[in-house]
């Protein structure tokens, strides 16, 4: 008996009120709940410990019978059951008596109540596993039905799957009320963990008669609760509490589904045909959005999520500054590949026509002009640049960005990316902002976007987020403006001479974006929005002027002079790229809003208004 103290101590350290912190083997499946949380709840006496259940129980059983009926776990202590359990019971009894009863005489040892048996007095059968547990058992919060902890941890939400994209809180198995949760009333005594200084358990000597009665009465007091608890009551432990990852799981499945739905075919225009060259990852939308409808009915959940999201604004900001916010690396790589191939393609085309002169002009005039222009528009946005005129709401930065970009369409690229990236951070309104399809396409056209440009763009977007539409407009306008101003450009050699002929590819392209956007905008996330060759078909059609052009033309005239070269370059690229890239899936799913169309229309109108510009592109 000399060693019993130590073993007793060890025993106490991992039990709570003679129950355990881990399941005792009733269920054999995976333990997919959060065991740390469960342990904590047990230690806090908010959840009944895992008691070893009894196969059977009768009120008149002796302690030994109870202990013999006790389930032994399959692992560690599961040696030959009968004898060992009795032996254990003895040693435990002796330690228990030592601790709590001040050394009883050996003679009475058999009669002494054994705590580990006494706790089963008045045992309750769990209606699910049909095993018997000590009367301090969990009760359903709603209908006050008993449920053992073993069974409780088995109840969970149905796993979401692609065809069942919701995760409903598990219902009470008894009364089918939602948000199943339990309430646990611990016994009036404490043992094991957290019992320091608490009333030691004490039971009358006789296991029968008076004991049963008194235990029963105390149980009755415990069970007197008749009111039900709300699932958010602090006394309630819900199945979601012990599986806090359900939200993440749901989000993951949803993201996977949405990603699949958002895949788009990347088209490349060759001549007047679109050729599919790849499939985008569609992962831009992988991050859960607040407007996904999943938070409906539960404001708390939504707020929690938004709070979480706001917790690292720095990261988001950084990403946004890099033009990478929320954008998938995979997609960026695809876009880069596309951009390169398009550049290559465009290069070929250019070589065929007037390669030499154009290059000269580009390097010389265009850049120089741009540089000079940059300073101008940024400081005085309202007057000079077309963008400023169009979108007065946007800050000077807009102008800055637009002017900065050598190739105007490129500016829109950064726009698009920043938009998609910013969705997480941005309020619902912003997320709802239309993806600039046309802008996306244009991104490809940009031969090289300098980091500065991107950052500027993103900055602009962030600052003027409510005015994204305007910003987009400005971007688009800028693009066209950049092209158009060529006529006014002094350095531009002979812009107007080249202009007369409208190149087919260019014109259709500019138009196609709008079409694509309108097509896809109603069903942004649906796979149908994928641009199919038929949709792009219109590009080949002759350009029909939009019936509702937005008055941008003024700007083009007033716009700062650009080198004729740059203009032509931009337009030519625009042709191919816009067409191909409109299709780009990366545009936010929320692109339904009317805003998205504006820029496109503008672009259209501009194209129409500025035939000269486009004609220049025809040169190549």
């Amino acid at each position, binding site marked *: 008996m000399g060693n019993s103290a130590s073993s007793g101590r060890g025993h106490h350290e991992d039990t709570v009120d003679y129950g355990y912190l881990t399941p005792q083997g009733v269920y054999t*499946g995976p333990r997919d709940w959060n065991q740390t949380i469960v342990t904590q709840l047990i230690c806090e006496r908010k959840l009944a410990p895992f008691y070893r259940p009894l196969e059977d129980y009768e009120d008149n059983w002796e302690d030994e019978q109870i202990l013999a009926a006790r*389930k032994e776990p399959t692992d560690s202590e599961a040696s030959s059951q009968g004898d060992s359990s009795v032996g254990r019971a003895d040693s435990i009894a002796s330690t228990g008596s030592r601790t709590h009863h001040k050394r009883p005489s050996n003679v009475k040892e058999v009669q002494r109540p054994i705590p580990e048996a006494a706790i089963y007095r008045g045992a309750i059968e769990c209606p*699910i*596993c049909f095993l018997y547990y000590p009367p301090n058992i969990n009760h359903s919060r709603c209908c006050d039905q008993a449920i053992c902890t073993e069974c409780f941890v088995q109840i969970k939400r149905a796993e979401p799957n692609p065809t069942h994209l919701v995760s409903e809180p598990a219902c009470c*198995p008894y009364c089918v009320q939602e948000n199943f949760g339990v309430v646990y009333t611990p016994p009036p005594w404490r043992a094991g963990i957290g019992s320091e200084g608490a009333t030691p358990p004490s039971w009358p000597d006789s296991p029968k008669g008076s004991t049963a009665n008194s235990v029963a009465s105390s149980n009755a007091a415990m069970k007197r609760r008749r009111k039900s608890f709300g699932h958010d009551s602090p006394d309630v432990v819900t199945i979601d509490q012990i599986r806090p990852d359900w939200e993440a799981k749901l989000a993951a499945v949803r993201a996977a589904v949405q990603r699949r739905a958002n895949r788009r075919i990347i088209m490349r225009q060759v001549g007047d045909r679109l050729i599919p060259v790849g499939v985008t990852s569609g992962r831009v939308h992988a991050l859960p959005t607040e407007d996904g409808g999943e938070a409906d009915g539960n404001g708390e959940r939504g707020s929690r999520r938004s709070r979480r999201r706001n917790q690292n604004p720095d990261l988001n900001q950084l990403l946004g500054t890099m033009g990478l916010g929320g954008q998938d690396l995979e997609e960026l790589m695809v876009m880069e590949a596309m951009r390169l191939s398009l550049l290559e393609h465009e290069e070929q085309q250019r070589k065929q026509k007037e390669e030499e002169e154009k290059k000269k002009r580009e390097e010389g005039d265009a850049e120089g002009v741009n540089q000079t222009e940059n300073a101008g528009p940024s400081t005085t946005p309202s007057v000079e640049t077309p963008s400023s005129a169009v979108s007065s709401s946007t800050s000077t930065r807009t102008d800055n960005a637009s002017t900065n970009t050598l190739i105007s369409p490129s500016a829109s690229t950064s726009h698009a990316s920043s938009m998609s990236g910013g969705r997480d951070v941005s309020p619902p309104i912003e997320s709802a902002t239309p993806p600039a399809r046309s802008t996306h396409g244009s991104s490809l056209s940009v031969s090289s976007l300098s980091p500065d440009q991107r950052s500027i763009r993103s900055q602009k977007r962030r600052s003027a987020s409510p005015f994204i539409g305007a910003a987009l407009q400005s971007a688009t306008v800028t693009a066209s403006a950049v092209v158009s101003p060529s006529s006014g450009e002094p350095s531009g050699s002979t812009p107007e001479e080249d202009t007369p002929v409208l190149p087919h590819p260019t014109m259709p392209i500019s138009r196609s974006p709008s079409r694509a956007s309108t097509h896809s905008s109603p069903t942004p996330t649906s796979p149908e929005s994928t641009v199919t060759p038929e949709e792009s078909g219109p590009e080949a059609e002759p350009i029909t002027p939009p019936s509702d052009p937005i008055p941008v033309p003024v700007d083009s005239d007033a716009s700062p002079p650009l080198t004729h070269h740059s203009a032509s370059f931009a337009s030519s690229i625009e042709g191919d790229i816009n067409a191909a890239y409109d299709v780009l899936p990366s545009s936010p799913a929320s692109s339904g809003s009317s805003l998205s169309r504006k820029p496109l229309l503008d672009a259209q109108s501009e194209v129409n208004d500025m035939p000269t510009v486009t004609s220049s592109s025809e040169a190549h």
Partner: protein
Amino acid sequence: MAAVSTRRLQKELADIKNHGTPTGITLLKADDFETWYLTLEVLGESLYKGEVFALKFRFEPGYPISSPAVQFVVDDKFRAPLHPHVYSNGHICASILGTEWSPVLSVISVCITLQSMLASCKDKKRPPDNDRYVAHAPENPKKTQFVYHDDEV
């Protein structure tokens, strides 16, 4: 320790043997704790008067947390009842066998539910999509995602 399903079914079986089964329900075969057969008939006035059906229960180790696979036996001796929620292959479209299963339910309670489902039937006919479903149905009805036609069952 045996799986929870075994222990629970042992107790359900003991209960059936000790207290009998409700009227109209008899235990046909329960030799193990994986597959049980029970017979079912609707007593009193009903469209199924005089007909006896057999139910086949298959239990997973996760029973009763996971629902049993329950279907009517269709063989040379038994037929599936003609019922809007029972397919000719014996599969049953009943929410308590799927999404609304509760671990509190038992073999006997399922039998009682199905008995009352038959008893309340007003129109003996197959589900509208019977042929299509039966042509492609999995062997185990639990693998089917039923769309429950109404809330009655």
